[in-house]
Every structure is written in structure tokens, then in C-alpha cells.
């Protein structure tokens, strides 16, 4: 259980800073959140883009990219890896939510 570490983190926040606030932990939250979200969204979007190779765009101009062509195996693999990384991030999220796991 991480009760103790959570409590320690909570009590350390009262230790320092202007207005009794631990500003460095806020800055940490900002940076980690930004990096994690941007990484997940970018990787997942790249995955969707890779998996779309060879298919005409949805909607838009009818001419588009023309007929369906086959997708290179590398693009397929890369696409699934990217989507898989997104899935792994979700599993890690569940791990963080459930205290029994840590």
C-alpha cells in the first residue's frame, strides 16, 4: 500500500512555500501531465495515421487519394504498436487508480 507515501507527500506539501503551498509539486504535476498527455495523444494519432495509409480519406474531396491500395506491412505494424502503446498507458492508468496494486 502506498498510504504512507501518499500521506508523506501530502504532509510535505504543508512544509514549504508561499501561502503554505508546495509550488514545486504543482510544477511537477503540470510538466508530467503535459508530457504524458502529449506523448499518448501524439503516438495514438500517429498510429491512426499509419493505419489509414492506403485508404482514401473519409469525406472531403471524392478524388482524394484515389482507390484503395495495399498498406505496407511496416505501416500496419507501426500503427498497431502505436495503438498498443495507448492501451498500455490505459493499463498503467488503472494501476495508478487501484491502490491494491501498489
Amino acid at each position: 500500500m502506498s498510504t504512507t507515501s501518499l500521506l508523506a507527500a501530502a504532509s510535505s506539501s504543508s512544509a514549504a512555500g508561499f501561502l503554505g503551498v508546495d509550488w514545486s509539486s504543482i510544477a511537477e504535476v503540470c510538466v508530467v501531465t503535459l508530457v504524458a498527455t502529449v506523448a499518448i495523444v501524439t503516438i495514438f494519432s500517429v498510429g491512426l495515421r499509419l493505419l489509414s495509409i492506403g485508404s482514401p480519406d473519409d469525406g472531403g474531396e471524392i478524388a482524394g487519394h484515389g482507390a484503395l491500395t495495399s498498406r505496407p506491412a511496416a505501416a500496419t505494424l507501426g500503427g498497431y504498436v502505436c495503438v498498443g502503446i495507448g492501451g498500455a498507458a490505459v493499463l498503467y492508468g488503472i494501476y495508478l487508480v487501484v491502490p491494491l496494486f501498489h
Partner: protein
Amino acid sequence: MSVLVIVLMVIVIALIFDFTNGFHDTANAMATSVATGALKPKVAVLLSAVLNLVGAFLSTQVAKTVSSGILTEDSKGLPHITPVLIFAGLVGAVLWNLGTWWLGLPSSSTHALFGGLIGAAIIGSGVSAVDFSGVLSKIVLPAVLSPFIAGAVALIATYIAYRVTKLSEVHGAKRGFRHAQTVSASLVSLAHGTNDAQKTMGVVTLTLIVSGYQASNTGPQIWVILICGLAIALGTYTGGWRIMRTVGKNITDVESPQGFAAETSSAATLLISSNLGFPLSTTQITSGAVVGAGLGKRLASVHWNTVSKIALGWVVTLPAAALAGGGAAWLAGTGAIGLAAVVVVAVAGGGTFVLLARRHPVSHENVNDDSSTATGRPLADVSTGSSTSSDSSKG
């Protein structure tokens, strides 16, 4: 009046609060998924309800420390509050939650709860019963920071999602984003369950402890966990459609890449902040993320007058609930008749909001209507003419 009667009254009003908490916060996790059609409305609330129930059983850490840092404690480690004051505080919180629901405002149930308790504690035990520096660092500051952090992250994430997928025109992108959005929204729902159901458990447990039915420094009993989990899940399933329409449609018309970016930002902000020991508030995170997602798409318009109404609601929530809780505490403090009067006022007030809401109902059927065409009034009347386009430069 016997202590047992008061304790039972607290448990009943706590469960009612938990129920309102559930339907108030369904929108947090599910509004964008309903708006983009990633989930059918009924499926979304069912999923959210189940995840809230599951979440209630996963952790009881918050429940043990619900009032610590907000209310000052005596030598035995108990806050200066009695069951009657807790009851009064909860009445204030419930009334505020129902009022904001009627208006369709996504206000924080946590702020309503603590506002009510703070107001009641001040009336009952004096100003010294409240730890104001704790209120600032644990409630006010997180509420101010949350929307900006989550909003900025969602803005960048939305921009990237649109850029990489050519405005999500590439084949399968919309569908892919919808699936991903459902998953990240579910994570938000689960995290919400582990947080909010516990706050009610904490209040019930606190009541049992201060009235001598339970030893201090013990966690919630299993029946408390069960009824609180069920109450919040039932509330969630009922669906706060009024608030969902505000978040999913009236702030900005959310598309699936925006929904994905907003929910991913919300989930990340929520999980990372609570794991780094600086918990932020769910309501403020998710609303901020939706605004950010609206700004992240070029040409997208954010309805700033809706946003400003929501922001005003956030500012007012804690003091308003404190006033209501304080008033109830003052009335209840006059004796049994006063307490009965509080019950009457609570039922009448709550009933009024429910009846008012019935005049312009929002249900799973019209949750996605644009409010300018819908008959509903909640928050409403956001005519497109009054909105401002955030960024009309294309590029």
C-alpha cells in the same frame, strides 16, 4: 433528541447528497462521449455508474481523512463538529447541488460538501473550527489551477490530434478517436468513483465516530461502503443530462478528436495530480479540458458566456453552500423544532428545484440538442450570436 435519530438522519441526507453527487458528476466523465456519439447516452451513464460503484470499493484512503486539513481537530484528533452540524452542512450541500443542476452548471460537489460543512462548523463551533490555510491550499488553489492546467494540456493535445490526422479526415480516424475517447472517459469515471464516493463514506464514518458508534481512527465499515457506492452509482445512472448538455454541447460542440484529447488530458491530470500528492478537482479539470479542446481546434468557437457562467458558479459554490449549511446549522441549533424546520426547508427547497427542472426537462433523448434549438432552458439560451469565435485564422 436521541443521538441515534440524528445519526440516522445524517445517513439519509448523506446518501441523498451522494446521489446528487453522482448525477452532478456524470457529465465530468461522459459528457464528451455522449456529445460525439462515441457512446449512446444510456450506455454512457450505465458504464459510468458501474465504474463508480467499482471505484467505491477500490480504495478507502480518502474516506479516512475526509475532513483533515479543512476542519481543525481537538486533542483526540476529531474535528469540532457534531452530528447535527454535519446534518446541517449536508442539507446546504444538497440544496446547492440541486440548484446548480437545475441551472445545468457543472459545479464541484466536493466544494458544495466542504462549503456546507464549513458553514455549519462556523455557526456551531466558531471560526476556529475551520482551518483556513487548509481550505486555501486544499480547496481554493486546486480549483483555480485545475482548469488552466487541464485546459492548456487539452489545447495542445487537440491541436496535435488534428494535425497528425489531417483534421481527422484520414480513414478510420474518427472511429479510432471515438473508441479511444470511450476508454479514457471510463478511466476518468473509475478515478471519480475512487474519490467522490469516499467523501460521503468519510462523512458518514465521521458521524459514527463523533457520536460514539465507532472507534476513532478506523476506516468506513463495509455497509457504509456498500450504501455509499450504490447511492452514487444510482445517481450517476439517473444521469445529469442538464449538466451533460452544458459540458458536451454548450461550451463548445465537441468532436471525437477533441473528446479524446479532453478525456485523455482529464484522466492524466486527475491521476498524476493525485499520485504526486497534489490532488486537483475533477469538475474543474474536465470542464477546463473541454474548453482547451475547443480552443485547440482552429475555427472552433468556445461559448465564452457559458464558460463565464460556469466559472462564476465555481466561485460561488463554496460560500453559497457555506451560507446554506450555516443557516441550517443555526436553525437546527435552536432545538428539535428547529431541526424539524431544517428538514421541511430542505424537502421544500429540493422539491422546488426538481419541479423547476421538470418544466424544461433534459433527458437522454435531447441531451445532444443545441440549446438554441432545444426547448430546454438550462444555462441556456446560449445563442450562437453571443458567442465569440476563439480563433478564426486558418492555417
